[in-house]
């Protein structure tokens, strides 16, 4: 796309240490570590919606938390408007967080149970001095309108709301500081399907009105397809494929993306297939295989996959995939017949 990306992620890695057992110490083995993120790179452009999908445990929530600096990556850098966010200190960091906000997965845990909605919003508005003191009540009403909550919601506590309403309170809190970027981590996975649509549509409408950049982390492929301009598919802490939503969903260039798409349940029973898209289980993230992380489950695997890790390379102008089979998915119709 155009111009400078608003966020660029450059070779980011993140490990979580597991406990270093006495047996391993005695045996002289190195401590175990979960490689939650492994050399992840991508860019986010201003005003777009980037969907990040993957199975649970693929590192997508870790990535979301790194983007808002709840976690610091062990390697690589995340740049916001060209500045490495790990170098930001106290006041600068708070200024950064004002511009890059997050909405959390759990609508029950993400709100302080002892604060009313107006206290939550008032705090956000006054700490960042978004409005002069006298204008704050009016702004709170405005924010409630924005997320379609009734005005009398202001004096109520989180436990008085449903899950969907709580997510909207979370959205209002994020919007209170007028951010440029919103990272939504599994925004609706805890909600009923009917409520999901309301919350998603609300967020999309707000994105359009307020020119927000959205990073949408989810495991629901149809949802991501519906809302994203571009999609990144993650597996075991790595990006397997990234590209424009339509081309990625129409003709995935990575066997894993294809497996994910095939695994998504089909609504039409006549269209259901019994073909198993990916065999076996996710390898342990404690012990990621040396070659392609998907090699143990891939139906197109060959020798090279097990020894050499494929790099993310261009397939089309905006489309990249990390697979040794450069031509995979190039002619989607032919492959579909083969399956």
């Amino acid at each position, binding site marked *: 796309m155009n111009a400078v990306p608003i966020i660029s992620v450059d070779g980011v890695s993140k490990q979580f240490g597991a406990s270093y057992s006495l047996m391993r110490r005695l045996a002289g083995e190195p401590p175990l570590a979960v490689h939650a993120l492994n050399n992840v790179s991508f860019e986010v452009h201003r005003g777009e919606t980037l969907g990040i999908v993957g199975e649970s445990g693929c590192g997508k929530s870790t990535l979301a938390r790194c983007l808002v600096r709840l976690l610091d990556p062990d390697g690589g850098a995340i740049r916001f408007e060209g500045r490495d966010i790990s170098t930001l200190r106290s006041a600068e960091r*708070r200024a*950064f*967080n004002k511009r890059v906000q997050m909405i959390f997965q759990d609508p029950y845990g993400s709100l*302080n149970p*002892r604060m009313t909605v107006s206290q939550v919003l008032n705090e*956000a508005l006054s*700490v960042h001095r978004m409005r002069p003191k006298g204008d704050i009540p009016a702004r709170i009403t405005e924010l409630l309108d924005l997320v379609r909550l009734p005005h009398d919601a202001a004096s109520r506590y989180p436990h008085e709301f449903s899950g969907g309403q709580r997510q909207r309170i979370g959205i209002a809190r994020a919007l209170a*500081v007028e951010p440029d970027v919103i990272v939504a981590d599994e925004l609706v996975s805890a909600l009923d399907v009917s409520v999901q649509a309301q919350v998603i549509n609300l967020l999309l409408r707000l994105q359009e009105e307020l020119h927000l950049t959205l990073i949408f982390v989810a495991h629901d492929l149809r949802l991501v397809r519906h809302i994203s301009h571009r999609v990144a598919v993650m597996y075991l802490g790595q990006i397997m494929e990234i590209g424009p939503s339509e081309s990625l969903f129409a003709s995935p260039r990575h066997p894993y993306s294809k497996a994910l798409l095939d695994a998504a349940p089909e609504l039409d029973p006549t269209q259901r297939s019994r073909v198993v898209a990916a065999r076996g289980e996710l390898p342990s993230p404690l012990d990621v295989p040396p070659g392609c992380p998907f090699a143990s489950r891939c139906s197109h695997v060959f020798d090279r996959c097990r020894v050499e890790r494929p790099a993310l390379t261009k397939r089309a102008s905006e489309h990249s995939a990390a697979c040794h089979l450069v031509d995979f998915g190039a002619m989607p119709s032919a492959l579909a017949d083969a399956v």
Partner: protein
Amino acid sequence: MSVAVEKIGLYPRLRRLALPRTLISGTIIIGVSLLIAFFPALFAPYDPIAFDYKALLKGPTLAHPFGTDSFGRDVLSRVIHAYTIDMQIAVFATVGPFIFGTIVGAYVGYAGGLAEAIFGRVVDAVITFPFLVLVIAIVSVLGPGLGNMYVAVGIVGWVFYARLVAAEVKVQKRLDYADAGRVMGYTPMRIVFRHLLPNAITPAIVYWMTDMALAILLGSSLGYLGLGAQPPAAEWGVQIADGKNFMSTAWWISVFPGIAIVIIGLGFSLLGDGLAQLLRVRR
């Protein structure tokens, strides 16, 4: 019932009126005790330290409902005047540890790491000794008296509050709303004191109520041992000690102060339970 429910919906503030019964009864007991503690002269029929050699060791009568002790002092008046000292012990011996322990606990729980490791060793060192033994040791170094007793209890007591608060803050800081505070760009100070502490302090408040009852017991124990309030001051522990030689002949000297301790202990426990219910988080 349905009317009440509707009212809750219409006036959310009204819910505060639906107080737990334990809280009401506890508040009444402690409220009356405080009233007596502030104005003992209004309730006591006699001077608590006036000797009456014509009425030594008299059993309960209309003139002396709780009887008299070996100096002819009116036991009822002494029990009533003792409220002043014993309520004072309840508050002064616990308020310092509660505040200091809560602040330390909040810091330790949030910071973790080295602070937590050091704090853990301090806790180990303190809880290795029985509480009473440690307090007696400190009082015997500082000398007997109420002031030194507050110091001694304070030196030891804050650890228990700090431990409670630290454990709870440690749980709360991992919840999403704490992360939300960080993402909102709030300072750690604000996150700890405005967000985490209100959600973490309930166990400490409930323990505080129990601790006030324990402080009265401790004050009475030290009074009994001669390390707390000094005779002839009216204090329940001192009174029980006064009566110990007359248990078989004049039981009323020790029993009535004992009953007063039981009632006040009950009052604080009920208050603690009631507060726990009132402060319970609705999710």
